[in-house]
């Protein structure tokens, strides 16, 4: 499986897009750190960029890549290789390459300019988001034979998780403001990986404000190391579930 992943990485490395992605992130990170002499402020701007860009690039690049890579897949399915291995290897290759670009473009500047736990959280959640949205992209690409439809679906899912979900949550909060919402809100954030990542970093960045009105439950949940482990497990589940579904469908798919 790793052999196939290796060839996928070779293929992506020849692709200029992943290099441009790394450079794009690098330019943004460096300019944010250099234009502002307060690294914690740069870090918070960087987090906003990360929450938008990582899922978007992750899901779009991966979806397009799978469609463009159909030849490779076609070639391999006639070989004595397990189908699930082919897809998993592709996943590792794509998510690994995107993560590498992210590590160079964003994690490296963060470790240089703003080392510390907040930076570390940002790096870890960024990689988690890369793996999650690559996984969702694989799901989209596998269930839709048509490229345009698959990419459209990927974009819609990104838009849903980035904007619509939070908008709905906001509406929900407006409507049910009179009720104790601590647990429902906590519950709902679990169903959006972007929210999950955002709150994880916020627990370091805006700890003071989070300790305010909604304090107790958040501290009990995200603040403790058990909560931290739990969040990481949740993020891992978010990466694994769409991928498992994609593999199941792919195993029975006609090529």
């Amino acid at each position: 499986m790793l052999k196939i992943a290796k060839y996928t990485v070779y293929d992506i490395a020849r692709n200029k897009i992943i290099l441009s992605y790394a450079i794009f992130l690098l330019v943004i990170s460096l300019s944010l750190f250099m234009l502002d002499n307060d690294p914690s402020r740069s870090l918070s701007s960087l987090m906003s960029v990360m929450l938008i860009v990582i899922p978007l690039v992750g899901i779009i690049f991966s979806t397009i890549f799978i469609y463009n890579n159909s030849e490779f897949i076609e070639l391999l399915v006639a070989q004595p290789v397990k189908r699930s291995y082919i897809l998993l290897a592709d996943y590792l290759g794509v998510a690994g390459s995107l993560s590498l670009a992210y590590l160079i473009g964003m994690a490296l500047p963060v470790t240089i300019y703003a080392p510390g736990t907040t930076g570390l959280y940002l790096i870890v959640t960024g990689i988690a988001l890369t793996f999650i949205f690559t996984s969702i992209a694989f799901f989209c690409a596998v269930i839709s034979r048509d490229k345009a439809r698959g990419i459209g679906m990927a974009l819609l899912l990104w838009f849903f998780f980035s904007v619509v979900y939070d908008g709905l949550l906001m509406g929900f909060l407006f409507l049910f403001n009179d009720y104790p919402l601590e647990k429902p809100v906590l519950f709902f954030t679990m169903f959006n990986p972007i929210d999950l990542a955002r709150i994880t970093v916020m627990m370091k960045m805006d700890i003071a404000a989070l300790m305010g009105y909604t304090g107790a439950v958040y501290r009990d949940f995200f603040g403790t190391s058990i909560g931290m482990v739990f969040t990481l497990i949740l993020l891992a589940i978010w990466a694994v579930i769409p991928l498992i579904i994609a593999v199941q469908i792919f195993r029975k798919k006609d090529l």
Partner: protein
Amino acid sequence: MIDILNLEKSFRKVKVLKDINISFNAGQVVSVIGPNAAGKTTLIKCLLGMVIPDKGVVLFDGKDIRNDDNYRKHIGYMPQIGHYPDNMKVGQLFKMIKDIRNISIADCIDEELIDAFHLRNIFHKAMRTLSGGTRQKVSAALAFLFCPRVLILDEPTAGLDPESAETLKSKIISAREEGKLILITSHIMSEVAELADSVLSLQEGRIIFYKPVTEILSEMQEERFSKAIVKLINQYQHAENC
């Protein structure tokens, strides 16, 4: 060697294969013929496990190919149109396939076609720069590379220049002499006559007939194979109309 039992497959509402029952044995060259959209390619893809049948089983050496990937070790497949990663170079492609197949020195490697097609001269070229014919050559070389017991060739000579087509045909003939099972789809009747022992005719997803070439010729009392085939097909069609 390969047994197909009650195979059925539809794409959405269109039935592409209807109740296919057939056996192929070693040392045979079977030519699969039929008009476009008769189900030839789908049948081949079922054998390769690329298309998952709705019903029925495919047995390879008596073993169900579902949930088994290793049987493909014994099959060399040459697709009708070879799709390859665009950025990959020809040499890398061969290297990669060997690498993925985990080839050890003890295994048989047959690079005769690579040499015969002079592919080494273009090892440095990227796949996307190749012409259709050259791609066919690469596909053919790949199919024979691992000395497989079964060769599945989908329109092998289409797009090849006459010289290369001859090279490939003689390679097929020598493979038959080695006792391999070879399945060929083709529209070119002269080629079928030249290579095949038996003919499998498909139409609208059904087997029309499956007969040895010699039998066809003697039954139809024709010397030219193409005429005999047309005659035979017409005969079956009339039979159906009655």
